């Protein structure tokens, strides 16, 4: 099982990495409405940000959906990101290091590349911090919203990848300051949806929040 899960995690890592990278894809969308430059530029104008989110996992193997709520906090002065799934886990990324705390607040060992899933989270958090997104169009066909809305749809190019990920849709807020929603649809209609609330920008976030839960 461990081997299998490891392999699966690797795929997760790759696919999620693609998501991160795909966000940085060349602006194939209408350049007048939605460009990568605008996206990056919009992300630069805050020192701190807090955005609450709800994650809904609709998994075909489970009778009921799994709903997690949480908060994403960013402090650029500290170079830190806190990604909290309320009551489940807290991930803190600071000084280019990722720490993971369990539901009881106990720190769990995060061994660098040991868990690719964690590494993927670290990559995403790093991107939140510096606002830079790498490009990776070779794996996905990136389709802009036909009506010009700030939305990108990523469809895997390879049939093999399509067995795991059908599509990924990212919707940004109109002012491009943060993502508004993200929907991942996997084969067999496994769906994971993130809905982000309105972000609070340049607010006071105690630095202790980036040290421990």
């Amino acid at each position, binding site marked *: 099982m461990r081997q299998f899960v490891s392999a699966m995690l690797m795929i997760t890592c790759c696919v999620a990495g693609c998501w991160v990278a795909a966000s940085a894809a060349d602006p194939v969308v209408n350049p007048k409405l939605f460009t990568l430059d605008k996206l990056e530029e919009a992300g630069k104008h805050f020192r701190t940000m807090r955005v609450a989110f709800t994650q809904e996992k609709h998994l075909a*193997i*489970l009778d009921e959906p799994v709903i997690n709520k949480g908060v994403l906090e960013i402090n650029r002065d500290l170079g830190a990101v806190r990604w909290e799934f309320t009551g489940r886990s807290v991930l803190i990324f600071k000084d280019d290091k990722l720490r993971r705390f369990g539901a009881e607040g106990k720190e769990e060992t995060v061994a*660098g590349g040991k868990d690719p899933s964690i590494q993927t989270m670290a990559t995403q958090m790093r991107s939140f911090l510096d606002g830079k997104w790498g490009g990776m169009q070779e794996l996905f066909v990136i389709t802009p919203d036909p009506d010009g809305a700030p939305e990108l749809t990523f469809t895997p190019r390879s049939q093999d990848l399509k067995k795991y990920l059908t599509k990924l849709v990212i919707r940004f807020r109109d002012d491009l300051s943060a993502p508004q929603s993200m929907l991942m649809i996997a084969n067999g209609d496994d769906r994971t949806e993130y809905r982000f609330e309105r972000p609070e920008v340049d607010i006071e976030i105690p630095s202790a929040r980036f040290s421990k839960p």
Partner: protein
Amino acid sequence: MSASPPVNPRSHRWHLLGWSLGALLIIVVASRARFTSDLQALLPDNDPELNRILVFLNGHSASHMIAIEGWAEGATSDDARKCLLDLTPTLNAVGAKLLPQPSPGSMVHLIDVLETHLPVLITESQLDEVGKRMGPEALQDYLKALKERATRPEDQFTATASRMDVLAIGGSAMQALAAQVAGTGFADGVVSHPDGKHFLLPMDVSFDPGNVYLTAKLMMTLDAAAKAARDKGVHLEVIGAYRHFNDNMTSLSKDFISTIPLGIGLIIALLYSLTRSWRAVVAMHVPALLGVAGAVATLALVGKNVPLPLIGFAATLLGVAVDYGIQMTAALRSGEHRHIHAPLLRSCLISVCAFSALVPSPVPALHVLGIMVVGGLVVAYLSARWLLPAVVTMEPMLDPWRRVTVPILHWCEKSAGRNLLVVAVLTLCLAPGLAHLRMINDVQKMDGSLPSTREALDRFMERWGTLESSNFLVASADTLDHALEPVAQARRRLGLPLSSIEQFLPSDEEQTRRSQAWNRFWSAKGDDFRTRFTADCSVLKMRAVAFSASLDRYRPVDDPPHITMADWKDTPLELLLSKLVTRNAGAWQVASPVDLIDRDAIEKLPQRVSDLKLEPVWAATRRHFAARLVEVLKGDLGKRALAISLAIIVAVVLLVRRSRPSLAMLLPPAIALVWTFGVLGWMGEELTPFTVIVGAFVGGIGIDCAVFLTQPEDRERLISPVIACIATAICGTGAMLVAHHPLLSGVGQTLSIGMSTCLIACLLLTPVVAGRRAAEQRPADALRPPAV
């Protein structure tokens, strides 16, 4: 004795002009020689077994890998990992690249191939392991763990992937890969150790470790990186052949730098004390320098490459050639050079005959050495005989060493019985040491790697296992199946676990066996499993129907598709398998890696495979290659030693044509060699091919001394130059005793002992056997000052 005729200045000018042109020609030809550091070109190619392993190991180019291990010492584990990642751009610039990393698409395709071919990929024992997860309680625990994992907020694809192979049977097959390296994670090219502390950056290097310059550059870069990392609290350790090669080259360079100036200084001091003339000291070395150029030019003329490792023996050639220079210069300065011509020619011819015996050797190293030394000696002799008279003028003076050397000679000439008694006692004491002599059987003992390098490798192997396999079971056949089947059979009979070859590319026969086991397994347990699975899912609020793809797969299959190399195309396994399965000239070759750490087991592997009598399977191990190489060299060196001895005896007998002088020339070096190797035997030293070759040089210089001391009438005049020859050789080679490299210090030790025993044997035996000077000559010694 009459003095030599006075020199003719006009004739010397012509000689000088001729030699200037000749030297220029030699240097021009030598400069056109192709120098090579390719050690493999020096290896024997006449032994089928050795050749087979060499061709195989070359084809696998396994040694082109380097690994940098990192761990935190004060910093955090993430710092260590980041430190390794940061290294890659720097190392790219010096020829090391990250290993090809699997793309997400190739990983997904791999899982697809695994799932499609489960019945032919999973062995019966692996199915038994799967069966343990299907027990009444085990299955529910397993599903509970799966659910827990899939519902983690940060996990996104476990649920999707598990639907296709819920029992992770494909993962069982992947264990064959996991067994090779202890790492559990692989991200951005860095492998993580299960201890969470150690990380590994494996890299592919574009050049051979034998490329001295590039290897040094790579290692310098890594040393600098390790130093910088240390300041950040991260320890970096380099593992791989490049570090060992660099250690050896650095050790040799340092040793040469520390010993050569010392040796040269001592030699110059000795020779100056003998001649009291800088011009004479310089002149003594002219034949040696021209001899080395001549040796290189000879190889160039016959179209051979000049192996740099053998240039080290130029120092020994210098030793012989300097003898010519010392004797001739001394004779010229005393005005008695005419008397030196015959012994000089004799000495040269005997040495040439001796080293000619190396030329027919099938071992390229010995063959090239023979050509090189013969060419060098001839040029050295010619220059000593015809160039030195043009540059050395007659300056008779009292021999400064006379106060010491002449009494020694008198003492040695005084009593034949006493000398023979001393020789007999020494021989009785030292000869039994020969019984203790052993040829080296562990090539690692010739390795000059630093202790820290070996310790790092040991620690690495304890932690990670082997970096790359150096041991293989190999089979070649007309079809792939005919090669796969016997290898798998040999592996089973040896009790070795499956390698990636047997796991992912089983023979047709094995695939049929596995699919039969698969069908038996699911026929017996399938229905129970499905019933229990549905019930457990219900208990855990999971939907059994979502796993229908898995449940459909877990059934007997009538005719499952067999897997071939082509199926692994575009998966991360394609590269691995293509290295292990090759096709050359219509024949398939399969190499099944054997990851053994236990040294004893590795040593016994070739014999164990041979005992199986499973044609065409054989074992290719680097250790066996090294042992076989020593064996082949030992055999050829034995033949060459016999040939050299015969050549010397024939040459001496033909040149001298008198029994006593012949014996006087042959016996001392023979006795000296017995003493030398007897001493080495008592010291417990193991012989290397290099010490044996050095033995030949000891014999050569010993004969030179004996040749000069054989003439009773010239003995007193020649004793100081003879002692000077031996003393300079001891100074040059004795300095090597302080070398750290085992090969260099071993050569220095053999030469130093050999030269010393040569001098003692020649002084004790030559006068006894060749005869003492006439009585009337001896009083005159005091009147006629021997000049140098």
